[in-house]
């Protein structure tokens, strides 16, 4: 019995470790302060995947806002357009940058206008069903 307990504990620990392995590291995350009465903000960060396999973000939500979308600013000659991304792949042992003029998370329909005092929690949902939360501050410009 004792042997079985130990065995199941090991299996449980292995499963937890496996679950932990689905996570990425979010670095330097921040939200661009929007001008007054402009209810659109962009969130930027570096997403680091230290794992040996790619991670796919299939959903993004935020506690501040009803509208959350992964976007990519795309240049078409002299024109700039935005693409909506259904998912974002973070390759194995790589970093993906969400930075001004490129990838970003667009936040709309905020319950309250975001200010420099706001604290925002964003949740990533991954392809394997796991989720990960992280906190962001609102900043005037790129830190």
């Amino acid at each position, binding site marked *: 019995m004792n042997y079985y307990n130990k065995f199941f504990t090991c299996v449980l620990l292995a499963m937890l470790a496996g679950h932990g392995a689905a996570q990425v590291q979010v670095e330097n995350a921040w939200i*661009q302060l*929007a*001008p*007054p*009465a*402009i*209810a*659109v*903000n*962009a969130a930027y960060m570096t997403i680091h995947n230290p794992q040996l396999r790619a991670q796919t973000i299939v959903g993004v939500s935020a506690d501040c806002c009803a509208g959350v979308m992964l*976007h990519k*600013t795309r*240049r*078409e*000659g*002299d*024109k*700039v*357009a*935005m693409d909506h991304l259904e998912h974002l792949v973070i390759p194995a042992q790589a970093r993906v940058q969400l930075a*001004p*003029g490129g990838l*970003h998370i*667009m*936040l709309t329909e905020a319950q309250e206008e975001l200010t420099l005092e706001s604290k925002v929690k964003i949740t990533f949902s991954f392809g394997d069903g796991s989720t990960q939360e992280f906190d962001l501050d609102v900043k005037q*410009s790129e830190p």
Partner: protein
Amino acid sequence: MLNKVSHKKRWQLLYAVAIATSLGLGVVLGAQQFSAPPLAVAQLLPAPKTIPEFALENHRAEVVDATVFRGRWSLVFFGFASCPDFCPLELQKLAKLLNLMGAGDALQVVFVSVDPERDGQEKLANYVGFFHPQILGLRGNNQALANFAQFFGAAYDRSAIVESKLLTIPAGINLPTNVGEQYQVNHSTRIFVVNPQGEFVGSFTSPYEVENLLSDMQKLMGR
């Protein structure tokens, strides 16, 4: 003896010609350098183009015409206030330039909203003021905006998904009522340079360093 003298003279003449040629070349090259200082990011037009008459409204609800460009240098940028990523980035850079130049009224940044249905006068005033007090906001009806943008060659359109289909609304066309609030504005990234005579003289586009733009504007403005 006579032969020797003429030989010497010939050499003297040759030296004189060589010196005169190199001096002349130096003057010509120097003049070229002086008339066209090398610019880091701005691309100049072969000839300046006078801005034609137009009627738009500024962020203070005043009607403006081409005289708004007289007596100062202007940097003109086309965008929209609900733009989450590109416009704030550009306006922050242009605000930084205004601070670094410290040129006061000699330089203005003009932000032209190509999204008049969403960007009312009050919204535009809040928007431009957030970035810098020296940024002038312009708005107007779709046709006037399209004509103004076309003069500079600034392309834009708006797009939305309506009844599961992608609908593109070209410049100059009023937004159809069935589009609602959720649509995209695809707009020019170029920033257009206008001289104090109200002539469009050149443009530049991102990515660029503010320091390079600063040195270009200092050269153009002779500061």
